[in-house]
């Protein structure tokens, strides 16, 4: 499997993706080494957790600790000058580009382990990790979606706190996470029903903005946002 083969799309030239269409990452790429450093920091901060959680739940976990495997993947790929140029040409969401690359890296690691063990202990049996690219992508989508939602929620909550809307965020969580009605929120938080709707809306607008920011950074276009959110909701639905 090649790094971009899980969902192949026709290659496109980089100049067909203006910065406004491919978002923040492309704009950073245009700024050279400093921009690349910012991208790498962002990738490690945002994608290390879901990649690590993916490998921790996969049959590749015997290859090493999730932290070491993710660090090894980042070290081998992010140092390549053209790594993100190839992502742009792939036309894939960044998370898909990364999981494809990660699976490829894990296969490389597997081959290396086999080779080393064959040298040192020729008769030892090796468990063969099984991976199906499509299933892996779906599983990673689910893990990434959950991580992204929590990251967006953290950002939105921090913004609410900074703006003096901590109570609004609590009401948002009570309504959308715990299923408390607006009528009951009004009683619980000692506000009117109209205020409960208004306050929850204040927080939900900030949460939406945080989700949109992350999706744009992942490579979605403005036009794709609604579809992308629907896709993430499907990924998060149990069973």
């Amino acid at each position, binding site marked *: 499997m090649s790094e971009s083969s899980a969902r192949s799309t026709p290659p496109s030239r980089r100049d067909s993706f203006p910065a406004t269409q491919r978002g923040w990452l492309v704009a950073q790429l245009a700024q050279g080494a400093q921009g690349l450093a910012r991208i790498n920091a962002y990738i490690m901060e945002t994608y290390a957790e879901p990649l690590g*959680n993916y490998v921790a739940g996969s049959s590749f976990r015997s290859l090493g600790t999730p932290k070491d495997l993710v660090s090894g993947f980042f070290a081998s790929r992010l140092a390549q000058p053209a790594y993100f140029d190839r992502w742009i040409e792939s036309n894939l969401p960044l998370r898909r580009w990364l999981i494809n690359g990660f699976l490829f890296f894990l296969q490389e690691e597997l081959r290396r382990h086999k080779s080393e063990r064959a040298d040192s202990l020729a008769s030892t049996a090796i468990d063969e990790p099984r991976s199906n690219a499509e299933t892996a992508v779906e599983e990673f989508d689910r893990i990434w979606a959950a991580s992204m939602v929590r*990251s967006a929620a953290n950002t939105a909550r921090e913004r609410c706190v900074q703006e003096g809307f901590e109570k609004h965020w609590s009401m948002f969580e009570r309504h959308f996470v715990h299923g408390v009605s607006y009528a009951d929120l009004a009683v619980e938080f000692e506000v009117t029903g109209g205020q409960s*709707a*208004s306050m929850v809306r204040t927080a939900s607008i900030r949460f939406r903005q945080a989700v949109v920011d992350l999706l744009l950074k992942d490579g979605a276009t403005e036009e794709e946002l609604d579809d992308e959110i629907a896709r993430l909701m499907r990924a998060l639905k149990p069973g």
Partner: protein
Amino acid sequence: MNHNMERFNDIPANTDCLGMLSSLGDETDPLLLRVVDRARRRDGLLPTARSIESGPLAAAGCATGLFFDGGATDEDFLLARVSCEAMRDTGSAAERELAALSLAILEASLIIYRRRLVVSASAREADARLAAAAAGVPSAWARLIHAAMRMPIRASA
């Protein structure tokens, strides 16, 4: 699953992410959300009591006597509802918002005086509709809606 790569995160790992993401969907009438947003920001005009009382609710007669005081018959409710829906479907932007608010008032009145829903398909939808409407209507009508929000309701057959 082993979560040993989980970074410190204030939002717990077992949070209902799907529930949170569902906040991005259309929980309630988008027309009402526009009213909520103006009320929240306090940067735009909201319907006055006069505009509500002379709007589509008046198709059946005196809106206050019928829907606030409870004098409406089933036929009055039906007439007002048809009038609201026609305005919501064909009116200007402001008229469509007025129609959406008027439908919420009808819903509130039906809950209080008939103990049933007609406009909303579920108690959850009615709760969101009433709360949003309450944010944008004048205080007298907001009191009616708040009273409805405190009442047990059931969806109509």
